[in-house]
């Protein structure tokens, strides 16, 4: 699996992975805020969020129609839609793309559900690897407590109830998450995960995240040419405008 940099994309992709409740979404959100404030071209994409596929996925989940195979395929469809319609054009245009979950979520989850690892990986083989993958590793208990605090109603597939691990959704969720964590850890070396200590306070983690990102990606290359969004301009107008500004600066 080649990274986007290795595949000569001008843009870079940063992914966060981890269990539900590991705090990865908060961290990538804060990273996005920082990059935006720095004037960097940035785009955020979330797992399972393609408008087109969503209605089928939610029907499948609500009516419990999904098997491990169709669960895997429908998420791959969702990913492909975002990949081809957003990620690839943005990365070709030199954006920093932030992904809350990437193909590794499927590698871990679908394999835990019993899909053959080679089959799942093969289906996602059209995708390049992230240039940076941060895995937020919290103690299993910490993640579970964050999610289970207040005993929310766990959804059927979220709790892994389709796997018949336990009749109790909370018990099932714990076993399921434990197995997913094992899968993640088993692939962490192969895919160069940067392991983040997610038991630390949020702010401390964010300092490390920003440091890692700025060390590994030459951020100034990804700055917008103008700090403020330009008003809609006539074709050709924009280039002229920027040239004069740069001339002044020089």
């Amino acid at each position, binding site marked *: 699996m080649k990274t986007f940099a290795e595949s000569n994309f001008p843009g870079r992709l940063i992914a966060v992975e981890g269990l539900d409740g590991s705090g990865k979404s908060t961290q990538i959100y804060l990273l996005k805020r920082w990059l935006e404030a720095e004037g960097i071209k940035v785009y955020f994409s979330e797992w399972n969020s393609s408008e*087109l*596929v969503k*209605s*089928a996925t939610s*029907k*499948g989940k609500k009516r419990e*129609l*999904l*098997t*491990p*195979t*169709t669960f895997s*395929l*429908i998420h*791959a*469809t969702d990913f*492909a*839609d975002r*990949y*081809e*319609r957003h990620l690839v054009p943005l990365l070709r245009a030199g954006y920093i793309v932030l992904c809350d979950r990437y193909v590794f979520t499927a590698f871990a989850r679908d394999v835990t*559900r*019993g*899909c*053959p690892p*080679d*089959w799942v990986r*093969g*289906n996602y*083989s*059209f995708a390049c690897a992230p240039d940076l993958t941060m895995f937020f590793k919290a103690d299993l208990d910490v993640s579970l407590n964050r999610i289970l605090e207040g005993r929310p109603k766990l959804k059927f597939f979220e709790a892994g109830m389709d796997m018949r691990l336990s009749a109790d959704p909370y018990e099932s969720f714990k076993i399921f998450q434990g197995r997913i964590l094992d899968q993640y850890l088993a692939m962490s070396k192969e895919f160069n995960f940067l392991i983040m200590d997610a038991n630390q306070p949020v702010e401390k983690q964010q300092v490390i995240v920003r440091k890692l990102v700025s060390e590994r990606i030459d951020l100034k290359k990804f700055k917008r040419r103008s700090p403020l969004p330009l008003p809609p301009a006539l074709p050709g107008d924009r280039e002229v405008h920027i040239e004069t500004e740069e001339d002044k600066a020089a």
Partner: protein
Amino acid sequence: MSATNHPFYGHGIPGIKPEDLGGTLIVMEGADGSGRSTQIAELVEWLETGGRPTVQVGLKRSTLVSEELQKAQEGNVLSRTTLGLFYATDFADQLENIILPALKAGFIVLADRYIYTLMARDMVRGMDEAWLKNLYGIAPIPDAVFYLSVEPQELVQRNLSKNATLDYWESGMDLGLSREVFDSFLKYQAAMSDAFRQLQKTYHFEIVDANRSASAVNKELRKKISRLLDQE
């Protein structure tokens, strides 16, 4: 009916053993206008009159995604990998909910198109054959696959006499082969037929000359299917 073993092309479906899959799986492939549905209807009539239970499946008929797939196609907004995976999801849903249970119960399953059409369409759109092979490794190997082969010129005539128009997707209009649907249809069907020929090397389906009358084709199919059922 004796249980015939149905191995999968590749990884198969988690938890399903090929030796539990009895029954008979018969696939009809071919372009729109090749007479697939007419042939299947005739075969169902013949088989059921003969006391054999049948089940029918076809593309874009799943509970899970058929509506969404239809909508997405109308807007023509999906790119090729997405559309390919969406169709694979539709196939997998019917495979697990209809085909596999019917085979387990010893039924004759008649599939109006199978993975080969899906693979051929994706290949014409530039998808990698190895990627498709892995993806569709979930499919059990049929007992017989009949490819109803019809010359593109004859297909045009049949489609126009039936609908007075050529279907957007069956003409491959998304590929930009030609602005004119008539030319695009001919080019696309020729490309599809090449893709089928390529797949035939691996999947060995029987090519049936369907330029002939429906009854002549049916006679040939019955003969072949009888032979197949007698073997069991």
